[in-house]
């Protein structure tokens, strides 16, 4: 399955979840949030939210700014 994670194309197993995709870019579990196709996915739903071909996932954290 081909998905886009933080703007980069990524190949993931067919049964991959949001949690799997997040784990592919960061080991952090706090201070991180994910949006799937423009909608926030609550952390409690990461494991149970399945990905589909061509999904776009954004994984954000806090950085210096403002």
């Amino acid at each position: 399955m081909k998905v886009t994670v933080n703007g980069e194309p990524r190949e993931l197993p067919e049964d991959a979840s949001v949690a799997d995709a997040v784990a592919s870019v960061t080991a952090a579990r706090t201070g991180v949030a994910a949006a799937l196709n423009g909608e926030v996915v609550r952390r409690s739903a990461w494991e149970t939210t399945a990905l589909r071909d061509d999904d776009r996932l954004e994984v954000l954290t806090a950085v210096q700014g403002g």
Partner: protein
Amino acid sequence: MSDPLVIAGEELGSRLIMGTGGAPSMRVLREALTASGTELTTVAMRRVDPAARGSVLDVLAECGIRVLPNTAGCFTAGEAVLTAKLAREALGTDWVKLEVIADERTLLPDPIELVEAAEQLVDDGFVVLPYTNDDPVLAHRLEQIGCAAVMPLGSPIGSGLGIRNPHNIELIVERAGVPVILDAGLGTASDAALAMELGCDAVLLATAVTRAQHPARMAAAMRHAVEGGRLARLAGRIPKRRYAQASSPFEGLATS
């Protein structure tokens, strides 16, 4: 004298809100934040960087400073709303510094997108602190929408030009029923003192400290300036006069 800043019913002991952008290292940032005495500090939300070492969140946690996520870099209401929602999920706070800019050269707020985003976020239960133009009409609109404070700019972000339109800031303060936080453009301590003397409830700054030659020293200067300006405002300054008014009596002078 206890004189807390109250935003959305929550008390903050310091009227200096800090940003974290521009600090050359986490060590320098930690020293500056500590010297500033701030209790509320902004961070930006960005894609995770697998190579990043050390988190600004760790620094804030160590210093016991509350985090205020911003929506810096967003050009549309849609981007800002999504960023605010991601920040709420990542950081567990419904406070947001709402920033919707019009272009990269001036970084000035886009008032149309700003109002649209503020409406959506207030409806969604956020405590919205909007970075706004120094426009009394727009500031009032943002308050009417339900924003918990208004944060007019002194001058463009990072410019260090100070408060270019003190009269507008005074007009915003006169009319506001929510805290007014002077945000952006301050260059040095006298700018922060002026903001408070004009009646602002707090000051938000980053670059003036983080890019100063000695960030921790400038942070301390800003802390004192904010406290001094606040005290001066509460004390009530003397009216300005066209001519001198002697402070020593003329009676009883020796004659030659």
